[in-house]
Structure formats: structure tokens, C-alpha cells
């Protein structure tokens, strides 16, 4: 397990975990899957029941693949732009991308589970652990078709990966003093 740089100029803001599976960083793996037609066709066929329930719409498999490709491209464009040009106004940009995993969580704290999606209706998710202000580590990603993550095996796995990443970051001493004090105070 290792930590790899994604965006670190002009300042460090985005990293990804590489679990050592041979598929590279989680960010690379996720975008590779979201651009792999065979993977997507298998996924939507396996989860066709959830697809039919999603957003009260009926999506055909080929339509679902088309939507995924379009949104994945959009998502990757945003990150690619940040990685190439740097994030000049981190306050607005990165903050608008990542949110607490739990929708009811109004506090922001160190080692908090977080998520990002290309638009509010999208089923694509990047999952990350927030280390400090504008500093995130991507732990994985998924196509989330159900309301809760623990309802399906592939999203349950993402919860486990977030736990594992959080433990690893804690072991590495990546706890922000400012945020840590905030937690201590409750």
C-alpha cells in the first residue's frame, strides 16, 4: 500500500492510494473501469435491477453505458485540468468537488470519509479521506445505484477501503493538528 501524488502544485491537495493490486492507483483504476465498455456492460447487466430503480427512470444498458462514459469524461476533465494547471482558487474549486460521505454530517474534520461526484444526479462516486483543508486522499470509486452503500457488495467494499485508508493515514501520522484539536474538543 502506498500513497501517490495526483495534484501537488502549486500546493499539495490531491493524492490517491495504490493498494498494490497491480492496477495502479485507485484513481487510475476507477477511470480505466469507467472507460472500459466490457466492464460497464457486465456491471449494468449484473445490477440491472438497481438500474431500473434508479431515479425512477428506465435506462437501457447501452444508455447507462453512454451516460457513464459522458460523466466519467467530464469528471476526469475537471481533475485533469486541476492537475495540469494547478488549483488557483482551492477554496471554491476543491471544496465544491468533495463533500462529507454522510449527507447529515455538517462538521468537517480530519480523516473524515468524503465523496465527490461530477453532478448532483450522477451515479459515479470518487471516495476519499479528508486530511486537512483542501487536502484529500482518494481511496476508491464506484457506480452507486442504491441509496445506501451497505446495500451492495461493491459499495460495501468501498466502505472497507475507506476504513483501511483512514487507518493507514493515521499510522503515517497524517493527522492535522488544527483539525485534531477540533475533534478533541468534540
Amino acid at each position, binding site marked *: 500500500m*502506498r*500513497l*501517490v*501524488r*495526483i495534484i*501537488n502544485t502549486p*500546493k*499539495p491537495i490531491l*493524492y*490517491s492510494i*495504490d493498494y498494490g493490486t497491480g492496477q*495502479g*492507483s485507485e*484513481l*487510475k483504476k476507477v*477511470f*480505466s473501469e469507467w*472507460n*472500459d*465498455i*466490457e*466492464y460497464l*456492460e457486465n456491471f449494468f*447487466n449484473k445490477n440491472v435491477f438497481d438500474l431500473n430503480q434508479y431515479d425512477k427512470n428506465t435506462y437501457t*444498458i*447501452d444508455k447507462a*453505458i*453512454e451516460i457513464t*462514459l459522458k460523466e466519467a*469524461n467530464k469528471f*476526469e*476533465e475537471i*481533475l*485533469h485540468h486541476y*492537475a495540469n494547471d494547478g488549483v488557483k482558487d482551492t477554496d471554491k474549486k476543491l471544496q465544491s468537488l468533495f463533500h462529507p460521505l454522510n449527507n447529515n454530517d455538517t462538521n468537517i474534520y*480530519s480523516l473524515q470519509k468524503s465523496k465527490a461526484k461530477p453532478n448532483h444526479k450522477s451515479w459515479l462516486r470518487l471516495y476519499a479521506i479528508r*486530511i*486537512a483543508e483542501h*487536502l484529500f486522499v482518494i481511496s476508491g470509486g464506484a457506480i452507486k445505484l442504491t441509496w445506501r452503500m451497505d446495500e451492495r457488495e461493491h459499495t460495501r467494499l468501498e466502505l472497507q477501503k475507506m476504513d483501511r485508508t483512514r487507518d493507514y493515514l493515521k499510522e*503515517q*501520522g*497524517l*493527522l*492535522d*493538528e488544527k*483539525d*485534531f*484539536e477540533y475533534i478533541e474538543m468534540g
Partner: protein
Amino acid sequence: MAVRDVYKKIEEIAEDDGSWLEEARYRKENRYWLRKSQRIAIRVLVTLRERGMQQKELAEQMGVSPQHISKIVKGKENLTLQTISKLEQILGITLFQIPDFPKRDEEPFSGEYQTKERVEMPELCEPDYEFSEETEINKRIKQKELENAGIAYY
């Protein structure tokens, strides 16, 4: 143990790995043809599933390796016309079509094709495959292609 400068600390631990950025750049630079490859892959996979046909069978009929078919159905292969034509013939579907030129009594889209050769050798301009019926989408695409004199994919 919390640290004072977590940004400095993470830079000490992290390693360089430009592979995602490299792939993202490749996808961006090749988006136009990759999009076509992906659409062909969708059509091939949906057809295989509908017919209960394995990729291995398709590979055998095409006389190519299963690895080649695997690349095609991932939507990452820069397909040749020969490969597209084989897929069309074996699966009995249309994946690629060159639009017909406008009829002579229609408003021409440009003067480029109003040549003597065009009139005398219409067979050169005929598509390889005809639609069994004129669907709405085909009509729309044909209209668009007549404007652009480009190539249509289905």
C-alpha cells in the same frame, strides 16, 4: 499524533506516479476516435449478449485471437476498416456507413461534388450497406452528414 504541517508531511511520504495523468491525457487527446470505438464496442457486446454468443466464438469466426476481441469490446481499439467489415458480416449488423451523396434534384451542399466524374461514376459514392428501412435517426444522421460530407457511425 497530530502534526503541525500536514502538507509537508504528506509530501515526504507520497511517491510520484504519473500513470493516471498519462492515461487521462491520452483519453483527452484521442477522444474523437475513442468515442467511435466505444460505440462500436457497445453495439458488439449488446449483440453478443442478445444472441448468447461468446467472444471466443466471435474470435474463431473472425480468425483473430480472443485477446484481439477483448480489446475491441473494451472500446479502446483503433479498429481497421477490415475489422469493422468482418464484425458487420459475422454479426449481421451495421457499425459504419458512408452517407450517400445528395440527389441531383436536391439543393447541393457545396459545389465540390458537382463534377462530371460524380455523375458518371455514382457507384463510387454508394454505401456498402443499405438500411432495411429509413428510420428517423438514419434520416437525421444522413441530413447532418450531407451538411458535413463526413462519416456516420451507428
